[in-house]
């Protein structure tokens, strides 16, 4: 089975929240005009993801999942509250964000100055809820795996937004065709970055992964015709 380290590395690169799943695109596009703000939002996402996913993991495994309430007594073993999971996750995310905001403001004013304005934005950032939903779907078996996944996803998101912000800063000096300026070119550049990130799929995860060559973007493009079936 996948080791914790695999999960972590995979979450950063080949299953990058932005490039593979497009999660958190709204704030990714809106807050990537300068590197400075991008770093702030990226750091806030890492922080919130790493806090909320483990909490949601506990919630999922000890409250929501079918049979999760067994610890309350045998008569609760039959209960399946998983239909409530969306609402519980979003509630947890919203309240943790609020809580974190208050705590940071009180105990770390400097950090608050840096992250403060981004925290409220994050409650509705798809990558946070996405983290919780992927955790549920992939059914990580230990809280350590879930944490590794959330930390990795956060770092992946951070890398993505800082990279695009740096590119956009440079793009300002290039002669982009009028209608493409701003949003259009950002989409296309993100697409190109996504292709670059796809080569990370070649990283060998786990011990039973093959030792020879790997799936890469090149082989994808000129896939042998005989296998090219829809």
């Amino acid at each position, binding site marked *: 089975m996948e080791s914790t380290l695999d999960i972590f590395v995979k979450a950063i690169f080949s299953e990058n929240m932005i490039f593979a799943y497009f999660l958190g695109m709204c704030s990714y596009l809106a807050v990537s005009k300068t590197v400075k703000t991008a770093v702030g939002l990226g750091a806030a996402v890492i922080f919130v993801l790493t806090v909320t996913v483990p909490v949601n993991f506990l919630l999922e495994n000890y409250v929501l999942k079918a049979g999760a309430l067994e610890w309350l007594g045998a008569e609760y073993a039959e209960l399946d509250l998983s239909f409530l999971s969306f609402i519980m996750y979003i509630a947890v995310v919203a309240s943790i964000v609020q809580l974190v905001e208050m705590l940071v403001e009180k105990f770390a004013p400097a950090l608050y100055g840096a992250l403060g304005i981004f925290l409220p934005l994050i409650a509705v950032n798809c990558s946070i809820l996405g983290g919780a939903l992927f955790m549920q779907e992939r059914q990580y078996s230990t809280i350590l795996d879930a944490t590794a996944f959330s930390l990795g996803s956060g770092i992946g998101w951070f890398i993505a937004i800082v990279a695009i912000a740096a590119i956009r800063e440079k793009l300002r000096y290039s002669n982009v065709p009028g209608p493409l300026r701003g949003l259009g070119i950002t989409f296309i550049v993100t697409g190109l970055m*996504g292709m670059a990130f796809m080569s990370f799929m070649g990283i060998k995860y786990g011990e039973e992964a093959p030792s020879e060559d790997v799936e890469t973007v090149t082989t994808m493009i000129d896939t042998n015709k005989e296998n090219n079936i829809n």
Partner: protein
Amino acid sequence: MSADKKSSEPLFSKKNKKLITDPLTDNNPVTIQVLGICSALAITVQVNQAIVMSMSVLFVIIMGNWIVSMLRNLIPSRIRIIVQLLVVASLVIIVDQVLAAFLPDLSAKLSVFVGLIITNCIIMGRLEAFAMANKPWPSILDGFGNGLGYGAILILVAVFRELFGSGTLMGFPIFGNALPGEESGLYAMGYQNNNLMILPPMALIIVGVIIWVQRSRNKALIEEH
């Protein structure tokens, strides 16, 4: 809603029509307002998925707008965001449950992206910006318009990706049979599907191109740096 009908304004007045048509073109939620992109891209590999996703969003945004608009004079302002989230999350759960019960195969393919409708910024954005301040009927129209505008982009992207990526539309082959050994149509002449279309990055590039086309036609939308 009866109160609105009695009012002097006709149901489909010019203003109300604009509520529907604007989001389809010059105020499109995806390409102009840059909202709701998260879910817009991941499920556009097949037209079927895009249609089901659009319908789900349409349902959630119309119902959400309507409910929040009905409650707008009751919702305490301090907890209004959480109330909106609760309403949206409940609607999404309804959609998810119904899909799982009646369209199990599609529901499995959409996986987490149904749940992510909750954080689709279009929905929260419209609830906060429109439904909190308007009567139910215009809110429904606004939801309908924005849902359609979102769906239009989704389906457009999906048409490109499915047609060129797998050579099918809604699962029906368009360019002939691609099975090795029994190729027909374009495939017999050496045509190949573009596998890159199916991969995530192409979705972004297609949206980029759509924005390009739209802004070339309407110069007013061009951004300054």
